[in-house]
C-alpha cells in the first residue's frame, strides 16, 4: 500500500506508523461530563467497513501526522492531508 503524503509524495506504507480514527477530538477536560467524554475518546471506536478517516505518522519520512481517507474494505486511499494544516 502506498500513502500519498502531502509533504513527501506517494510513499510505501512501511514508512508510516498507524494510529487510528482521526475523527476523534480530545474532549474539554474541564467539562462536567469529562469522565464520560474521555472514556469514549480513549476506548470507544467504530469499526466501519468502508470509508475511514485515520491518522498515520510518517515516521521514516517528514515526521508529519497525516490524516488519510482509506476504504477499509479495499484499502483504496481517497486522499490525505497534513494535521493542523500546512506549517
Amino acid at each position: 500500500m502506498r500513502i500519498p503524503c502531502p509533504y513527501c509524495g506517494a510513499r510505501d506504507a512501511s514508512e508510516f506508523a498507524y494510529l487510528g480514527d482521526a475523527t476523534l477530538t480530545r474532549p474539554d477536560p474541564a467539562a462536567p461530563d469529562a469522565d464520560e467524554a474521555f472514556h469514549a475518546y480513549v476506548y470507544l471506536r467504530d469499526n466501519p467497513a468502508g470509508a475511514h478517516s485515520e491518522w498515520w505518522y510518517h515516521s521514516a519520512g517528514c515526521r508529519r501526522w497525516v490524516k488519510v481517507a482509506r476504504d477499509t474494505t479495499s484499502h483504496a486511499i481517497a486522499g490525505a492531508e497534513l494535521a493542523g494544516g500546512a506549517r
Partner: protein
Amino acid sequence: MSRLPSGGRVDRARSLSFRFDGKTYRGFSGDTLASALLANQVRLVGRSFKYHRPRGILSAGPEEPNALVELRSGARREPNTRATVAELYDGLDAASQNRWPSLALDALSLNGLVAPFLGAGFYYKTFMWPAKFWESVYEPAIRRAAGLGRAAEGVDPDHYDKAHAFCDVLVIGAGPAGLMAALAAGRAGARVILADEDFLAGGRLNSEVARIGDEPSHAFAARTVAELASLPNVRIMTRTSVFGIYDGEYGAVERVSDHLATPAPFQPRQRLWKIAAKRAILCAGATERPIVFGGNDRPGVMLAGSARSYANRYGVAAGKSVAFFANNDSAWTSAFDMKAAGVNVTTLIDIRREVAPALAARAKALGIDVRTDTQVTGTTGQPIGGALTGLAIRTGGRGGRLAADTLAMSGGWSPSVHLTCHHGGKPVWQEDIAAFVPGRTPPGLSVAGAARGTYGLGDTLAEGARQGSEAAGDLGFTATRPDLPATEDTPAGITAFWHVQGSKGPAFVDQQNDVTAKDLGIAYKEGFRAVELMKRYTTLGMATDQGRTSNVNGLAIMAELTGASIMETGTTIFRPPYTPVSLGVLGGHHRGKDFRPTRLTPTHAWAAEQGAVFIETGPWLRAQYFPKAGETDWLTTVNREVKAVRASVGMIDVSTFGKIDLQGRDVGAFLDKVYINTFSTLAVGKARYGVMLREDGIVMDDGTTARLGPEHYVMTTTTANAVKVFQHLEFCLQVLWPELDVTLASVSEQWAQIAIAGPRARDVLARVVDTGVDVSNEGLPFMGAIERTVMGGVKARLFRLSFSGELGYEIAVPARHGEALARALMTAGEEFGITPYGIEALGVMRIEKGHVSGNELSGQTSAGDLGFGKMASTKKDYIGRVMAARPGLKDPDRPAFVGFKPVDPSQRLRAGAHFLTIGAPADMAHDQGYMTSVAHSPHLGHWIGLGLLKNGPARIGERVRAYDPVRGNDFEVEVCSPAFIDPNGERLRG
C-alpha cells in the same frame, strides 16, 4: 535418445551434463530438466504422494503436479522442484522423491493395494482406535509413507535480496498478448516492465508452429523482444514470477541464480520485487486440463499442448508412438504440429462424433488414424516402472485396444485467472469455451489473451496491442497501435467433457494429492458438496500446484453429481501467491544477526577495548559488565563495579536514552500538558524529573528534562520508549495543540552522553572541563544543567543528575567526541581508580536506590502505584489526568511500589514471584502483587527487591510470602521502603 534431429529453441552447440538419481545424462542449453529427461527417455521421475504410484511428466510448465524432484544437494537442496520449470545447467543434480528403496521398485507402492482404505477423509475415519495410537503409531507411519521431498538440512548458504520497482504499465506474461501490450505501451513512451516466469520470452509462440506475417512465431517473438530490449523505457524481466497483488502493488520473485550451480559472487539466489505500477495487463495465458479416466496418471500420459511444446520448443519427441485423446480442436493442431516435427503420431481419439472436416482431412493426409466418438477407458503399462504401453478404448459401445507409449490428452484450456481474484474477484463460467474467465478485476488491472479466454492467435495479438495502447493512453501517453501482422487462425471448437464413465482403475483428478473421481463421489455421498468443503475433505487442489490442472475438473465432476451447473457450483478462491515462493526470499537479508539493525553506542569501541560483555537492549548493543582477569562469574564483576562507584567513582555510557530538543515560545506550556508535573516554572540552568502518562491514565515514560534557555529545553526518555515518546509528542503538537509554538527534534544520535557517579565524580569532572568552568556545588548544584566546554573547546552539556544515588553528573558532547570523552574521563579518573561499569551495575544501584525502570513502567501502573501521586499537579490539565482519576486507578488497594528483603538473608529473590499474605492459599484470588526487579546488593550483602504489593506503602515492616512456583521458591520477605540506601539523598546533594 528421443531428441529430434533438428528444431527447437535449444542450443545444440552447448551440451550440458546433469545427473538424475545418480546417473549421468546430457542435455542442451535451453532445456528444462523435464525436457532433458524426456530426451534421455527417462519417463518415470517420481512416486505419488499417497499411493506411491509411479509418475512421469504431465506438463511442460508451472502447472506440473508429478515431476517434482529434489534439486541440488546438501544445504542447497530444494525439495518439490518442478522439473518442468527447472532450467538445465551444467552439473545439475536432481533426485526423485518419496520412494524407497528405489524409484522403479518402491516398497510403499503397496499403499495402492490398500487404496480403498485411504480414500477421501480417511484421516477422519480410520485409525480411530485405540485413540492413543494416533500420535504414537498411526501418524508417524502415515507421515513416513506420505510425503514429498526432504528439506535442506544445513543453513542456506545463499542470500536473498529485496527491491522496489516503479512503472507506468506492468505486463505480466511475455506471450503473444504480453509482447504486443508491452510494445504498444513501450513505443508510446510509457515506462514498461514486462515480466515472465519463463527464462525464454515468447510463451506459446515458442511452443507452437504458426506463421505471423512472413516469419515463424518464435522468430516473431525474438524480434519483438529485441525491439523491446532496445527501448530505454522498457525493462524485460525473465525468470520473474508475479505472484500476487497487494493493495495495488505487485509482488514478484526474480530467480536470479536458480539456473546456475551457485550464484555468481555478490549475486543473490533470488530477489523479491515490490512493483508499484499505475496500470497492469495480465497476459498469463492458459493451462491445459487433463481428462479424468482410469489409469490417467501413468508415466507417458501427458497434456497435449505440453507434448507439442516438447517437440517444438525443445526438439524432443515425448514418445515413440503417440496417441491423442481430446474433446477439442487445439489437440488436433498439436498432433499435426508434432507429426510435422517428426514425431510418430499414430492416433487421434476424440470424444466428439463430428469434428471440423478440415481437421479430419488434414489428419487423413498426415496418415493419422482418427477415432471419433471414442473414449479411453484404461491404460496398461510396463511391469516395472509402470510406463504406458497401451490403451483400452470404447467407441460407441464397443471396446478395443491400441498400442501407444505416449498419450497426449486435452480436456480444453483454463485461463490463468489467478491474479484477477486477489482483490476478491470471482471468475465467471463461459459456456462456449468451457472455461472460467476473469470476473471483476483488481483496480488498474486488465486482462488480455488466453488469460481472458481469447485463444485465437490473431485475436490475442490484437487484444494485447489494444490494451497496451489503451493503458498508455489512459496515463497521458500518445499511443498508436502497432500494425498487426497476418495470422492463420486455427479452429478452436470444444465440447465440454470431464470424465470417462465406467473406466478401469483409479481415475485421478488431482495427481499431486492423489485425489480420484471416486473420492469426489465419496465427498458427494457424505454431504461435502459445497466446493470449499469438497476441497478440504478430499484435499483436491490443496497441493503445491494449487490445483492448476485439477480444480476445474473436480468441480465439474461435483456439478455432474449434484446436477447443478458449473457456475452454480462455483470455484474455490485463488489466493496469493500464484506460485510457491521460498521463505528465504521473503526474509531477504533480515536473518541471523541482520534480522534488524544493530545500534552501537558512541563509546562501543572503547568499551570493547575495556573487555566489556555486551547485551542487546532493544536495537542497541550496550556494555553489560566489564569483567577483569580472574573474575569468573558476572555477579563478582558487578559487585566490584557497584562497590567501586559507591566508594570512589565509576562511569557508564548513557547515550541510548532518547534525547529530544524542544524550542519555541510555548515549550514550557507544552511540557506542562504532557508531564504530570510542571515544567514552565523550571529555572534556566536546571533540570527536573518528569513523569508522563498515556491518555488512559497509565504511566508511559519518565525521564529528566532540562531548561537550557528561556525557549530551549532538552528532554530525556527511557531507551526503550525513545521512539514512542517522540511520536507521541509530535501527535500532541500537530494534532492536539497545533497553535503552540514548539519545534521538536530528535537528537538521540547527535549527542553522546556519559554518566560519572561516586564520591569522587566532581574531582573527575573538574579535570575534563575547560579552564574557568565552575563545577563546584555552587557552580553546578544538584539538578543543575549548564552548557560549557570540555577537553579544550568541545561544547558540552553538563547535568548534575543521579540514577545511582551517588554524587553524579552526565556529560553530553557531540557524538563524534563521545569516545574521546570516555578516554579523557578514564585518564582524569585514573588516580581515583575510575571504574567503567555496565548496565547490570547500573540496575543494581537503581534498585538499591529504589528508582523505577522498565520493569515498573510496565504499561499497567499508574503514577500513584509508583509513588508519584504527589508529583501530579492539581493546577493544570495534562495528558491522562482525567482518566487517571477513575475509581479503579485510585483504589488504595491497588498493588503499589515498595521494597522487599528476604527474612532469611541467604535467600535469593526472584523477579516474577507473587506475593501472598502468610497462610493464604496460593491462587489468583489471593494474589497480592508481584516482584518486579531484584538485585544482589553488595552494600547490604543480601538480595533486595522492588515490587508492587496491594496497599504496599501502608504495610512497611509486614512479612509476606514470595511465591515463585515456576522456579520452586516459596519463602517469606519483609516489606520495606524501596530506598535501601541513603533514603534522604545526602550523597547526591553532597
